[in-house]
């Protein structure tokens, strides 16, 4: 049975509550730690230069600075094969075993290149929040290259996610139910009037929009019928509506009646308050990472709905909230593998020649991009840390710090110093980075809050004058896993 929609507070009351929620924001400048916190939570790392830019700003101004400049397309050129059509399935089926193996190997190679492409984009983007949101939506609308097989589809999906990442959630849902990778991943290309397949319908309601308890089994069946015909043109790899297999009959869905198709279904879903609540909860967990009380959830999700599902508006609200800025919130979130890897390289200006190293490192830590474990995505949070992954994180960070293992180029735009590389300078990367820091950071007391969100768990040996040793200790400290 459907739950009744909660009463929506009047706009006036909402504005009053809204003002209360923002707390009285001081007009003075944010602190160093607050700037670091904002940058780490909304991006991959708090680079010293980025902190410097935010320092003169107030909290609200800093948030605006983070939110503006969103990009909707990746700047990194994709692999050349993305424009090619998908592999010819008939050819594959009729081909010899040897040819099939070759084609499979090619697909695997393309998958590796696709993952490396995304890592490259994350490493070089001018707007890290865009990539964080793209990752967020990838985790919310998972599709796996393992099942979909054609990397071009996952590439297209990634573009769709990025296009709408900081845009409108309503547009994103409409796009996703027509996304070829998603349609294949959840078997909707096999969803026919004569033999419905409920996979996409179920996950759409259970995981992507409403959440369990906000719909009935009958709604799943009705949605599945409405989604029949949403298929993929296998020659071009694009969305195709197959009218012949579409069930155009009358359906009862969430209390409405009509000859609904996929667009109608999404529109009906988006009228439910439960949708905004689900998304708000997830974004709060992603960016604020402290418990969320029902009152705040209500205010935020109602506002999200009223803006017509504008993601930026919701983020503005989250990032301006009292709980986000509370000192006790710092260090409450465990870095995902991608955040740890990309963040460390960005923070310390470590360039790597082969992003494929990052791809396999991410996989070994439990986050193989474009290959989520199941349709629920990566659980995240404390699930990232097991005995196995904790040891591996430490090992990988250790290798990053010994930059010779990664064949780092010394600096962008400068010629590699062959002498220093031949000598195998173990701390080359970190020393370089330290040398480039503003002088006020060149001391243990200021270096620590630059690198860590909390006081280190292990006492730092401050007797050594060698700051790069200290950086090493800070990075290998358990607290480095937190942001």
């Amino acid at each position, binding site marked *: 049975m459907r739950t009744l929609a909660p009463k929506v507070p009047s706009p006036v009351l909402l504005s009053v509550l809204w003002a209360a929620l923002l707390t009285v924001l001081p007009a003075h400048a944010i602190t160093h730690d607050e700037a670091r916190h904002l940058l780490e939570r909304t991006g991959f790392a708090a680079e010293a230069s980025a902190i410097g830019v935010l320092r003169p700003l107030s909290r609200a101004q800093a948030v605006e600075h983070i939110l503006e400049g969103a990009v909707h397309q990746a700047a990194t050129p994709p692999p050349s094969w993305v424009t090619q059509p998908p592999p010819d399935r008939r050819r594959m089926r009729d081909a010899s075993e040897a040819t099939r193996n070759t084609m499979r190997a090619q697909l695997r190679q393309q998958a590796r290149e696709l993952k490396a492409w995304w890592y490259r984009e994350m490493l070089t983007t001018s707007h890290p929040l865009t990539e964080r949101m793209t990752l967020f939506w990838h985790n919310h609308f998972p599709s796996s290259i393992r099942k979909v097989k054609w990397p071009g589809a996952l590439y297209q999906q990634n573009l769709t996610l990025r296009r709408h990442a900081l845009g409108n959630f309503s547009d994103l849902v409409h796009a996703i139910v027509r996304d070829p990778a998603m349609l294949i991943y959840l078997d909707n290309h096999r969803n026919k009037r004569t033999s419905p397949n409920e996979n996409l319908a179920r996950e759409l309601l259970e995981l992507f929009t409403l959440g369990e308890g906000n719909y009935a089994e009958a709604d799943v069946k009705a949605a599945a019928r409405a989604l029949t015909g949403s298929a993929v043109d296998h020659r071009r790899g694009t969305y195709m509506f197959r009218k012949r297999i579409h069930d155009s009959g009358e359906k009862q869905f969430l209390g409405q009646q009509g000859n609904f198709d996929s667009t109608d279904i999404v529109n009906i879903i988006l009228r439910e308050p439960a949708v905004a609540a689900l998304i708000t909860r997830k974004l709060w967990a992603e960016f604020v990472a402290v418990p969320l009380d029902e009152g705040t959830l209500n205010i935020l999700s109602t506002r999200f709905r009223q803006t017509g599902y504008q993601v930026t508006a919701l983020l503005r609200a989250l990032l301006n909230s009292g709980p986000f800025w509370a000192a006790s919130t710092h*260090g409450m979130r465990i870095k995902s593998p991608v955040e740890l890897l990309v963040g460390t390289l960005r923070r310390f200006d470590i360039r790597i020649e082969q992003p494929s190293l990052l791809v396999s490192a991410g996989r070994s830590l439990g986050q193989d991009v474009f290959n989520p*474990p199941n349709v629920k995505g990566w659980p995240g949070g404390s699930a990232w840390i097991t005995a196995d992954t904790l*040891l591996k994180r430490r090992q990988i960070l250790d290798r990053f710090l010994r930059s010779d293992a990664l064949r780092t180029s010394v600096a962008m735009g400068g010629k590699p110093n062959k002498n220093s590389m031949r000598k195998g300078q173990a701390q080359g990367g970190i020393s370089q980075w330290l040398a480039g820091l503003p002088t006020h950071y060149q001391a243990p007391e200021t270096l620590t809050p630059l690198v860590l969100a909390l006081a280190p768990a292990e006492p730092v040996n401050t007797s050594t004058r060698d700051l790069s040793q200290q950086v090493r200790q800070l990075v290998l400290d*358990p607290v480095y896993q*937190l942001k």
Partner: protein
Amino acid sequence: MQRRAFLKATAALSSAALLPTVASAAPRPQTLVLIELNGGNDGLNTVVPYADPLYRAKRKHLAVARDQIIKLDEHLGLHPSLQPLMQPWAAGELGIVLGVGYERPNRSHFRSIEIWDTASTSSAYLDNGWVAQVFAAAQPVGNYAADAIVLGRSEPGPVAGAGMRTIVMQDPQRFLREAKHLRTQSAKSSNPALAHLLGVRADIRTAADGLSRIATRAKPVAQRFPRTAIGKQLEQAAMLIHGGAAAPVFKLTHGSFDTHAGQQRMHARLLKELAEAIAAFRQAMRSAGRWGDVLIATYAEFGRRVAVNGSGGTDHGTAAPHLLLGGRVRGGLYGAQPSLKDLDGDDLKFSVSMRDYYTSVVREWWQLPAAALPSGWRSQPLGVLSGAIPGDGSVW
């Protein structure tokens, strides 16, 4: 031979008085090896009611060919891929529990595996795995390196919970090498994320200390294992069990059995990998003289629908058979094969509840008193293992 029950550590001293004077000084550590059939194994094509005309009628082209089925009796047979399990079957070491499930089944992967992991009812949400709940009441006595070891790319599931020292590792040797770098350090924190990190570190140190003791004692396992994911996990488990008291529970994963499409080939391959790995494991344990101290138990979030779907596969279902293997298993069929006529909608009705299945492990395998069962279980063991159950005086 009467075995001692496990007791809480504080009661260990008084339990010494119960030791039969003839038995060896310390009880041999008993190890449970849980294998999750991730994704939901199609039980109907695993243990096949080949003689029932409804089977072929409902399963159509997906029905296992009659002449390929390994007959167990006049009604049931096994999928041909399970041929390697016929040796333990003949030796009476394979127990097949039919129709395991629970009331008001849920067909969502995530919700249903949660129910299986925590042994909750269909509407309750529990935080701790069922093994964690049992261990909260009674811990196996022994100098174990950890409470549970999770191998492969697997979720802790049943062994996750408060008070459990659960180690997730992909490779024991590598684990030991890396663990050496961690400095011993105790620290508490009010920050839950940091507390989790520090807790895992502490578990690593404890486990590493224990495991390195075992590593020095263990002889290499001579048995060759299949180079599959499940083969590797069972090989690692064998190594650790062979060396000594690594952990009372191992948790492994095989899959994915979520065969919505193209089931025939996938399912045959998965069952073959499972059977071959188990057969190798059995050999290794027998050579080490430990087969009587080990119990393999499979489980999964559900079985699959009776009817074939439009893609040559099956959708999420309900009840399914599960396998128990070990030296102490009293081989045979347990429970009742679900009827293909008397269905619950389109799905099989269960005959053995998941809690009864677990209770056999708790009471017959670990020989824990009834008080160790989590509250509300109200369950009965199946009589599938040999050995005395404390408290009722009977000997099987």
